[in-house]
């Protein structure tokens, strides 16, 4: 007995895949909580009840306000997440950094049939 996963022919269950990347030198929007810093990406409309958004890979910096930039490492990493805030909006967001983060990441939105 194993763990239930996708059907063998899982590709037939996928309605669409959208992907892209974000490269922001500065200017992330500021909010609160998990949206302390975020950027909204416009996508083609998906059914949010059947779609999954993920960050595939990322790289980030934090500026200390005095012109110095630090690549983030494990203990203070800026970890970006992705979620759909509407059928046409993907939000790349992070709640943990201080300072002014610079963020680069790739993302994917998979919509299932």
């Amino acid at each position: 007995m194993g763990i239930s996963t996708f059907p063998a022919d899982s590709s037939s269950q996928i309605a669409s895949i959208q992907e892209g990347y974000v490269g922001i030198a500065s200017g992330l929007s500021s909010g609160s909580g998990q949206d302390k810093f975020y950027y909204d990406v416009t996508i083609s409309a998906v059914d949010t009840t059947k779609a999954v958004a993920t960050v595939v890979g990322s790289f980030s910096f934090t500026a200390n306000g005095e012109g110095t930039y630090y690549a983030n490492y494990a203990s203070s990493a800026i970890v970006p997440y992705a979620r759909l805030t509407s059928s046409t909006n993907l939000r790349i967001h992070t709640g943990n950094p201080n300072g002014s983060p610079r963020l680069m990441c790739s993302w994917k939105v998979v919509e299932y049939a």
Partner: protein
Amino acid sequence: MMRYAQINTNSICIAVSNLKGEVTAAHMIPIADDANPIGKKWENGTWNDVATPITYRTINKMEAIKLVITHAGMDAAAEEAMYDDPNLSLLWKRWNNWVPYDDINRDKPDVAEFLGGLIAAGHMTQAQVDALMADWPKVGG
């Protein structure tokens, strides 16, 4: 697949997306499949490079003193005279006690005070200080 560049309010491309269908929005610019205009500015229908602002890095005291010596053209005697100048007694005390070793920031007041003191005491000229500031180490430089 439709490929778009997403621009921010300054018309700078900050995202490239491969979308499943057409999107009509002022901030979504259709681009070729192999185009990557990240960081470029969308102006009058073309992507233009944006000048990168200069960012100066924080240096340590040894680097700062070397900048002074180099730009003032000091030999060993002139360097020693600078250290021993009684007119700079307070300046050196502040430099040694107030300024962290590895946190010399070009735009902080203590740098201006320090260099201003060297000018006032005749160890540097304004032109030499200007040249020093222009040569201040840069991020990535």
